[in-house]
């Protein structure tokens, strides 16, 4: 690697910071042109931030990828530090039932969306704060099915996971009981589960009842969905009592009573109870390594002050945009050529309709009804499949989407929104295949922190287009059968997946089946960037399962080394 700046002996730092602020640049230039440095002891240049003691593991990111493994590593007695770019909130006091006021939950540093189907970020696909995106996830937690992991085996499309459902099953079960997932007694799809959900399902809201009605007409099976929100008070190991969901319907803008199993009320307090040191407002800028290619530490900015920490192992869990962005900025783990590539986003088309009934879409868990009858449709002309979910929706999110998709304005726009209480939606969560045209790269343009913005290219390919077309037809039929008028579709893509994928070989994957980077022996990656395929299911539960597995595999290796 040319032009590397040597910070101290043995530590290489390829990141070349660029001073954005013209005033600061002027001051620096001025200082550099001064002939002699002052000898006044009070005027000596500041030293590099002092290095703290070396910890066993640094974990970057505290969402579904970072938090479970943080707890696992801390419980094994390791000295662990988590660095979280966002703040640490008290939801009971800080969270307003107001979409605009809650915008601080999203990663608002600007990303550039390119391609023919540019993917929205911000509130759609990102998160920040202690707890990461789980602070605003919808808490939909179905398990992936066995065939989800084997698209290539079954269809010759995409790539297979290096392991299958059986490997994750014990983790799914552990998570459902640890998080307190509410779900049906008998879930109609997938492999029979060994233990039922610990809590009864949450009540069906208006949209769910309408979807149930429409699906019944058409012979499509439905079930109350699995949701990581408590249908009853739940005692949680290491955390204490969490209160039941009050049907506030505001999951996507932050739960304020701890009923939703976001990481800040589950794995993170558990980790902290076992000695994990969680540092909020800590934005990582550099990953340092030695000449043999091992990571040696991390440089981050906390509340405007630069800090450094040394570590024996690094777990990068910053999500499928920030994780590859950090790797690219640091020229780390790039030998496979796959970092930033294989970007996938779930096909997520929504279909909306207007009903005579009073629905009040703001009440109840947003996704209370599910169908996986479309997991492998008989008449499919595509690889993979999708699931169907009813959707409740907050007013600003809905109005904004309707404005974008329908382009209604003037009196027509206001008239349509006066029907808000009579509108219900269904959406899908479907497969997406990796494609050479869909990738993330660093742009020339810098964000407000002076760091190169990520540019994400996404163009739906024929497989995604066919899934979307199939699903739109099915959902329109369901809504017609349920009695809807003024039906319209909003094609969209949700979740960010695949930009540092796992695989069997360093030739076509960034990490191995245990989450360890092929070319950096003490770097682990765990978030949705390691997913080799999208899975026709909401990702959070599987990210957490992979996180626990990554921790267990790491601990196994450490134990072997000790012997």
């Amino acid at each position, binding site marked *: 690697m040319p032009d590397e700046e040597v910070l101290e002996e043995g530590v290489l730092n390829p990141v070349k910071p660029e001073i954005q602020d013209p005033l600061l640049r002027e001051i620096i230039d001025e200082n550099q042109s001064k002939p002699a440095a002052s000898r006044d002891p009070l005027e000596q240049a500041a030293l590099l931030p002092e290095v703290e003691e070396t910890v066993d593991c640094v974990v970057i990111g505290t969402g579904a990828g970072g938090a479970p493994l943080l707890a696992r590593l801390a419980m094994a007695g390791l000295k662990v530090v988590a660095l979280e770019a966002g703040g640490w909130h008290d939801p009971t006091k800080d969270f307003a*039932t107001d979409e605009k006021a809650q915008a601080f939950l999203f990663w608002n540093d600007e990303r550039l969306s390119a391609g023919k189907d*540019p993917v929205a970020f911000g*509130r759609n696909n990102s998160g920040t704060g202690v707890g990461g995106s789980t602070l605003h996830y919808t808490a939909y937690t179905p398990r992936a099915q066995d065939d989800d992991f084997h698209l290539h085996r079954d269809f010759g499309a995409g790539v297979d996971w290096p392991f299958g459902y059986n490997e994750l099953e014990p983790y799914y079960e552990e998570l459902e009981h640890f998080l307190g997932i509410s779900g049906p007694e008998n879930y109609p799809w997938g492999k029979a589960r060994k233990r039922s959900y610990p809590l009864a399902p949450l009540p069906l809201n208006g949209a769910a009842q309408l979807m149930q009605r429409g699906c019944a007409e058409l012979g499509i099976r439905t079930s109350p969905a699995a949701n990581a929100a408590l249908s009853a008070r739940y005692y949680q190991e290491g955390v204490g009592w969490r209160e039941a969901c*009050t*049907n506030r319907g505001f999951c996507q803008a932050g739960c304020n009573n701890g009923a939703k199993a976001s990481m800040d009320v589950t794995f993170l307090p558990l980790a902290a109870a076992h000695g994990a040191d969680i540092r909020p407002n800590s934005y990582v800028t550099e990953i340092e390594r030695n000449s043999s290619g091992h990571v040696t530490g991390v440089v981050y900015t906390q509340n405007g002050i630069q800090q450094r920490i040394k570590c024996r192992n690094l777990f990068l869990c910053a999500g499928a945009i920030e994780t590859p962005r950090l790797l690219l900025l640091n020229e780390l783990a790039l030998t496979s050529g796959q970092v930033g590539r294989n970007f996938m986003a779930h096909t997520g088309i929504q279909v909306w309709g207007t009903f005579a009934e009073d629905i009040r879409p703001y*009440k*109840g868990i947003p996704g209370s009804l599910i169908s996986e009858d479309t997991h492998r449709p008989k008449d499919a002309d595509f690889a993979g499949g999708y699931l169907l979910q009813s959707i409740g929706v907050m007013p600003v999110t809905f109005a904004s989407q309707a404005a974008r998709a329908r382009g209604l304005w003037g009196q027509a726009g206001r008239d349509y929104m*006066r029907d808000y*209480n009579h509108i219900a939606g269904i959406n899908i969560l479907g497969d997406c295949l990796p494609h050479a045209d869909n990738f993330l790269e660093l742009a020339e343009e810098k964000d407000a922190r002076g760091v190169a913005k990520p540019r994400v290219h996404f163009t739906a390919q024929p497989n995604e287009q066919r899934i979307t077309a199939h699903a739109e037809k099915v959902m329109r039929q369901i809504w017609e059968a349920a009695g809807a008028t003024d039906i319209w579709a909003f094609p969209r893509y949700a979740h960010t997946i695949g930009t540092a994928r796992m695989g069997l070989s360093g030739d076509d994957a960034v990490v191995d089946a245990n989450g360890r980077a092929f070319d950096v022996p003490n770097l682990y990656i765990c978030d949705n960037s390691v997913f080799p395929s999208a899975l026709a299911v909401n990702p959070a539960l599987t990210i957490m399962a992979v996180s626990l597995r990554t921790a267990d595999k790491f601990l196994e290796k450490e134990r072997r080394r000790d012997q």
Partner: protein
Amino acid sequence: MSAPFYPEGTVRALLATDLVTEATRTALAARLDAPLYEPQFFDGVTYELLRAVAARLFPQPDRETPIELAHAIDERLLKGESDGWRYEALPPDREAYRLGLGGINESAQLLFQHPFLSLSPEQQDAVLAAVQRAEAPGTTWETLPAQLFFEELLAELTENYYSHPIAQEEIGYVGMADVPGWHHLGLNNLDPREPESN
């Protein structure tokens, strides 16, 4: 089926009760009682142009004091805040707004030989509809994709409008009054504090 009308005053009344948390009340009251605003990012003329555009996209002939939609855009651009993403085909937000508003004026001149502010409401609507369809004349639109600019403008105004308690009242939304939780779920099943349409 014609769209429902909800009684006035429901949200303002709820905000005064302990059915609303302090954090929620603070957020909503700030919008409800927003002080008069002087633009700080846009110059006075451009700001008036933005207000005129907003008045056509969200006409409010039913209100003595319309909900102000432009000031949050001016504030956001002044602070350089982002909502986390941007169509790559558009320039950065500040530039997009400056160019786009200039483009609306340019199209107004070319279509009706007057600046946008001097046009009749019908003419103003015609200009905006042409921009939305990417059929508006003017050199601006050779570099700024008209449809995308219009979509972003409409989405931001829409979010500003429906974030306002009075607009939420208009659509019968009372989700902010959630302290006791919601006990009546499902179709045609209202909690006592939910307003019924007439």
